């Protein structure tokens, strides 16, 4: 691969039809770090502000409580409310498809595709998944509101925003967690009622998936202590937490369910400062050497394949630590690393990245629609639906399924029919400048139509890997 082909494909989202090719591959990438726009105009219509999320949760809670009341009263009212609930669920499913299409459109229209890659990378690092009940309306807002604004900021700010965003608090059931010595629990002891207890999910995932990583040096007791510190973090708009204090990221802090007292995590003491206690811990976790190494390894794997060169991992970890988690510095170190500019393709494209590359090659914004979301499901990577807080696996074995290859061929041919293409031979040379094999060139040239040529280009080894 030539440096231009590497910049376009390994770092970026693929060539976009109509664009001029960058003359200085590295300079083009570095410029994108400066020019990244966290909230481009297309994002204007999306509803992801704190008050939008609050309204969403209030609406769902109201329907639930109306339903309970109606059930006690008997009669047909309950059926009516259930129909309303179904309508709401349908509306949220449609909203989800709209958010996926918007995500694709942002990537398609972006002049900073390298940074869009980083948006997707970080969203997957702090994964929430749409397959859990009531998550469909929250996964888009999580990326739009908690990831995008911090992609060229500091890791610690992104950690605060992403781990304590309402979507994460809902996904990992943090809002159900209650301190065993909280005021809420004391009242329960006096008056009876079901005990809610401590939920460790978010505490564990912050340590295992967001910061230190498996083997990063924490114990089960650290997980518990973090879970205790996190009690009180809940959603805005829940009927039982009306007194909760709204927090800037869209979450809320409800002192009534917070576990009082000092916490000790990784040997460090944290005074009980309410909502601030979790922030203080997260800030320290963000600076931990294990976090630097974990992030460096994931980032290196994302660009150089399953077993990233140790030299690259070390350099990125050092860059992370020295800059205090300053992400633009980390990206500059990445771009400046020879290992990432290796000639040979290093990695398979995920279905998401492959689909976007196709969309950009086709150059038709209208193709980022409902069908696009459905196609992703067929290809085995429905957007924002990794099914696990660990996110999509970033190793080749997850994306080299035989079935998926055939589905790509089918998707490419269908797409080719919808995109208005010119000469696909020329497109191939532009998309993969100086990097097209003789075989691929010959097979494309021998296609019986321009559309078939496009499908072959999309299915070519040069497109499937990068």
């Amino acid at each position, binding site marked *: 691969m030539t440096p231009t082909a590497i910049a376009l494909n390994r770092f970026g989202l693929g060539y976009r039809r109509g664009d001029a090719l960058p003359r200085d591959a590295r300079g083009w990438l570095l410029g994108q770090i400066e020019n990244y726009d966290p909230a481009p105009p297309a994002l204007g219509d999306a509803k992801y502000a704190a008050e939008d999320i609050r309204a969403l949760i209030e609406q769902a809670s109201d329907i639930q409580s109306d339903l309970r009341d109606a*059930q*006690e009263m008997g009669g047909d009212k*309950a059926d009516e409310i*259930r129909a309303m609930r179904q309508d709401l669920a349908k509306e949220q499913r449609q909203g989800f498809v709209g958010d996926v299409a918007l995500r694709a459109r942002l990537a398609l229209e972006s002049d900073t595709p390298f940074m869009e890659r980083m948006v997707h990378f970080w969203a997957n690092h702090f994964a929430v998944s749409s397959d*859990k*009940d009531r998550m469909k309306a929250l996964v888009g807002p999580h990326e739009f509101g908690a990831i995008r604004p911090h992609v060229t900021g500091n890791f610690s700010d992104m950690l605060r925003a992403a781990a304590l965003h309402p979507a994460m608090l809902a996904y990992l*059931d943090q809002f159900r967690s209650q301190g065993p010595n909280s005021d809420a629990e004391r009242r329960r002891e006096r008056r009876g009622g079901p005990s809610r207890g401590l939920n460790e*999910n978010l505490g*564990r*995932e912050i340590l295992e998936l967001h910061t230190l990583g498996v083997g990063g040096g924490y114990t089960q007791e650290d997980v518990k202590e973090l879970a205790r510190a996190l009690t009180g973090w809940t959603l805005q708009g829940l009927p039982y937490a009306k007194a909760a204090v709204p927090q800037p990221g869209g979450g809320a802090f409800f002192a009534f369910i917070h576990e009082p007292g000092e916490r000790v995590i990784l040997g460090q003491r944290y005074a009980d400062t309410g909502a601030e206690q979790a922030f203080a811990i997260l800030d320290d976790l963000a600076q931990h050497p294990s976090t630097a190494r974990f992030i460096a390894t994931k980032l290196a794997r994302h660009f150089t394949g399953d077993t990233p060169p140790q030299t690259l991992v070390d350099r990125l970890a050092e860059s992370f630590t020295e800059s205090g988690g300053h992400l633009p510095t980390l990206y500059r170190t990445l771009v400046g690393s020879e290992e990432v500019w290796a000639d040979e393709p290093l990695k398979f494209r995920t279905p998401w990245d492959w689909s976007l590359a196709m969309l950009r090659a086709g150059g038709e914004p209208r193709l980022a629609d409902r069908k696009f979301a*459905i*196609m992703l*499901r*067929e*290809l*085995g*990577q*429905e957007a924002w639906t990794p*099914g*696990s*807080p*660990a996110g999509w*696996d970033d190793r080749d074995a*997850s994306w*080299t*399924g*035989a*079935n*998926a*290859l*055939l*589905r790509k*061929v*089918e*998707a490419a*041919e*269908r797409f080719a029919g919808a995109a208005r293409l010119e000469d696909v031979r020329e497109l191939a040379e532009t998309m993969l400048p100086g990097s097209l*094999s003789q*075989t*691929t060139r010959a*097979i494309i040239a*021998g*296609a*019986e139509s321009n559309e*078939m040529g496009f*499908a*072959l280009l999309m*299915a*070519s*080894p040069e497109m*499937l890997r990068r």
Partner: protein
Amino acid sequence: MLDRRTLLAWGAAAGPLAALGPRMAFAQGSGEKRLLVLVMRGATDGLSLAAPVADPAFRRLRDAWLDSYADAPKLDGTFRLHPSLGEVARMYADGDAMVAHAVATDYRERSHFDAQNLLESGASRPFERRDGFLNRLVGLANDGDMAAVALAPAMPLALRGENPATTYAPSNLPHASEGLLARLPALYGDDPQLAAMWQQAQELEGLADSSDMGSLRKASDAGTLAARMLREKDGARIAMLDVPGWDTHANQARMLERGFGKLDALLGAFRKGIGPVWKDTLVLAVTEFGRTAAINGTGGTDHGTASAALLMGGSVKGRRVLADWPGLAPSQLYEGRDLFPTTSLEALIAGALSEHFALDAGRVMKELFPGRSARPLEGIAA
């Protein structure tokens, strides 16, 4: 003219692929034993699947739904099968099906999400592990030589992990044109990895023969597809399939008539499709937890604890209900509301799998479901 089938034959024999030697869709389908795992997502009501109609407490709790069991297949002196499970009833009469009742995993809360995670990962706490119990089974059986396929567009947790497994789903996309398909072997002529993937794709497609199929949501198609994947000598040995739609908070009678009807159609199509290989087959149908014993205010049931599991196939020592029946009187219910769990689902699965694949039961339990106190059950499968 080239049709799909001749193209497959041609693709397998001609061109640079031949240089790679004979290939099969799966590395090597060694061993005769087959396993189909159906995950009934959403918490199936075990008391509807196999209803203890002779239990007076059940008759009180489920009075409104008793009528539908009047002519339902009798399992023994206590239980009747749901009336929509006619195919299962026939298997049961043939000695090829059993019900295990009052079973539950170690999970004792009521989140589908956490409970399915625990069931599929086999961990003793949700999200503790990233790999699945079926993937670990792949590593245990036949010295790791056990082809596994998830019939789904993406790999479910149960089959994720370090051992090889693949996915297959019939396409909802239009089929690629023959002209395009014919050119792909040449496109991958210099690329052994992609050439092998392409050939495997074509063979999976050949095994599945899914051109006449709808999506996996059509139950009989899903059953036929599972049978096609498992029945061939060079096909898969383990297949997994989701059967969703069991979260019956309201209008349960109607939802289950449809749900069990679909499950029955799936199993009927599978039984028919797999033919004589049925004798070497074990089918497990399991769910993440059960539902409340009493009917709620909306003609449904809510998240509960113990449920029932179905075990089928020629391998099963069938025609019986395996249950340490806890009873359904108020004092006998778990937390005053759910069927009390008396048998470990993990121990049932580990016992059945170790007998079916002739593996050491203790080892299967330890690898698939570490940290459990229950001992694997015996005498489930031959």
